[in-house]
């Protein structure tokens, strides 16, 4: 069992799936000889060749649109969007086409594609307005699509393999700050982490905090600090954002009676709104306090200049503060 980074786990997951199944291919910008701008497909070109490790023209709609056709004709494409910020030109192909192929054909045609997209920002990402965005809010609204975002290297490999084997389109979101930040145990064997179930990362009794990606990391740090203050928080890793594991969310809230959701994306209409709305409708009787959202600011995106970037994003400090207030409520 090897220790590795999230990025390596994703690469390994893809590598194993390409070895296992000749129908699997990767396509995107710079995924070939360069191995991707983050190195997720490093070495694939030499190993699998140009036909299965395809440097596409610079056109995201074509990357997704062609992948849909490839899937219709027997391949299993893993499309890499270089930065999630650049997935928008493919919005119509994802929403109107990939996500609806099965429904509109009454089950006759499917669309087994995986769309990988590095997302998220932070001062150390230096991504500015167009290399920092969270995009899950747009895509989790789309029936027919599945949306996952791993936190641990173990989940990264397991969820990636589950995504490749899934008969429906999966948007696989990878937070850039997690790529190299943490290492974790990743078994060599062929395991999958099922798409769907959330995971309680920290057991607690006084409040439930729901998060994913980098914000889960910040939340866990905040929870540790608060533990020292005697505030015992439960922290849940949502992992799969659609279909969402409502049961695990409600079970946790019914236990702690207080709920908070943390996300990096813009607050208004961000993913936390749905989590909050589900709790407000289905666990109302269990609530002993308001459902709190801690999120990114409602400005177009994270600015580049360090002081502005720092002002945009929720940190362990901000999260801990909000948890303290909710616990004391």
């Amino acid at each position, binding site marked *: 069992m090897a220790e590795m980074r999230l990025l390596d786990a994703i690469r390994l997951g893809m590598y194993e799936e390409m070895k296992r199944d000749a129908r699997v291919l990767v396509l995107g910008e710079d995924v070939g000889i360069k191995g991707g701008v983050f190195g997720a497909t490093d070495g694939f070109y030499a190993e699998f060749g140009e036909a299965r490790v395809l440097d596409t023209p610079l056109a995201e709609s074509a990357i997704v649109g062609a992948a849909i*056709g490839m899937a219709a004709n027997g391949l299993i494409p893993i499309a890499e969007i270089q930065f999630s910020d650049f997935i928008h030109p493919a919005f119509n192909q994802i929403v*109107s086409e990939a996500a609806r192929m099965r429904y509109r054909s*009454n089950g006759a045609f499917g669309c087994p594609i995986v769309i990988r997209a590095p997302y998220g920002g932070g001062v150390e990402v230096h991504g500015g307005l167009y290399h920092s965005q969270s995009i899950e809010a747009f895509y989790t609204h789309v029936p027919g699509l599945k949306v996952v975002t791993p936190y641990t290297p173990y989940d990264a490999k397991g969820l990636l393999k589950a995504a490749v084997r899934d*008969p429906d389109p999966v948007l696989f979101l990878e937070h850039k700050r997690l790529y190299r930040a943490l290492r974790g145990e990743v078994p060599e064997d062929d395991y999958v982490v099922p798409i769907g179930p959330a995971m309680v990362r920290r057991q607690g009794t006084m409040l439930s905090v729901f998060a994913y990606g980098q914000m889960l990391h910040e939340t866990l740090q905040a929870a540790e600090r608060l533990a020292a203050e005697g505030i015992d928080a439960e922290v849940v890793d949502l992992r799969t954002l659609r279909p969402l594991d409502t049961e695990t969310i409600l079970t946790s809230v019914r236990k702690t009676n207080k709920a908070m959701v943390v996300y990096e994306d813009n607050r208004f209409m961000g993913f936390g709104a749905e989590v909050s709305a589900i709790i407000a409708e289905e666990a109302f009787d269990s609530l002993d306090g308001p459902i709190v959202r801690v999120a990114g600011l409602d400005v177009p995106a994270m600015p580049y200049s360090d002081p502005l970037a720092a002002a945009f994003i929720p940190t362990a400090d901000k999260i801990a503060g909000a948890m303290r207030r909710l616990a004391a409520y």
Partner: protein
Amino acid sequence: MAAPDIKAAQTRHEALGLTRDDLLEMYSYVALARAIDERMWILQRAGMVSFVISGQGHEGAQVGIMWAVDRERDWLVPYYRSLAACLTKGMSARDLMLGLFAREADPSSGGRQMPAHWAHPAHKILSTSSPVGTQYLHATGIAYAAKVRGTGEVCVTSVGEGGTSQGDWHEALNFAGVHKLPVLFCVENNRYAISVPTRLQFAVQDVAVRAAGYGFPGIVVDGSDVLACYAVAREAVRRARAGEGPTLIECKVERLTAHSSEDRQEKYRPTADVEAGRSKDPLVVFKHYLEQVSVMDEAPYTDIHGRIKTIVNDATEHAEQAPWPDPSTVTRHVYHEG
């Protein structure tokens, strides 16, 4: 295009290796497509169905092109005027009518899509959407898979001339050109995108000239001339199978009806223009050719149109009596049902 004189004409279909029976079968598809189409309008006017969008005027080009493909092996990624193409590819009149009536047994979508969104897995006709132009990229992906899997399949797709303005159209031709993919990109240029004339759609006479910018041939063909369309498509299919890459085929056709049952074309289209279109009616032009080469006369004509009438009546009654979708199925097939 003036009617070719008989000598030339005879050499035309013979030169293309088409028999008398081929011609009559091709004619039957054009005529059947037209008959189904006309029936659809009647049903819509009678309030029996709520919407119709038509392929009248486009049938000749579609039958000519589809005649050049292997109907078992090859793919079709159609658009909403591809009625004749879908018929030729193997869908039945019942299949089409079930879609018009939006019944449970509609093989295209089980009544989920508007009429004219044809699909059929058994006939390798991919499900398409309403947003114009997206299908070009799906055809490109299908052709890429055919190439890397070595299946020898060719993919035919089509769109109107207005659809050539979409970014996806460009991205598809570019992608297919880079990889020399086995795909026929057809543009059915009927001079209007609903009300928008070609002068406001693009600044060129023939959109086919754009193929040069993608590294493959672009051909302009008279869409009312079934044999000319067949000839062009046959060469394009040959190129595709030989690994020589895509062909862009612009068929000059006429829209013999309003854009759809929602449109009133009198408002933007001069009567003279509509009338002029009639001279390009592929059904008339093709029949004329068949008469000239004495393949068609009273007997086969009556026979063919008699059979067609039966088929259309049967399809209409069948669809009309077919059950509606069960409301409880509305939540099915959002995801794979394991």
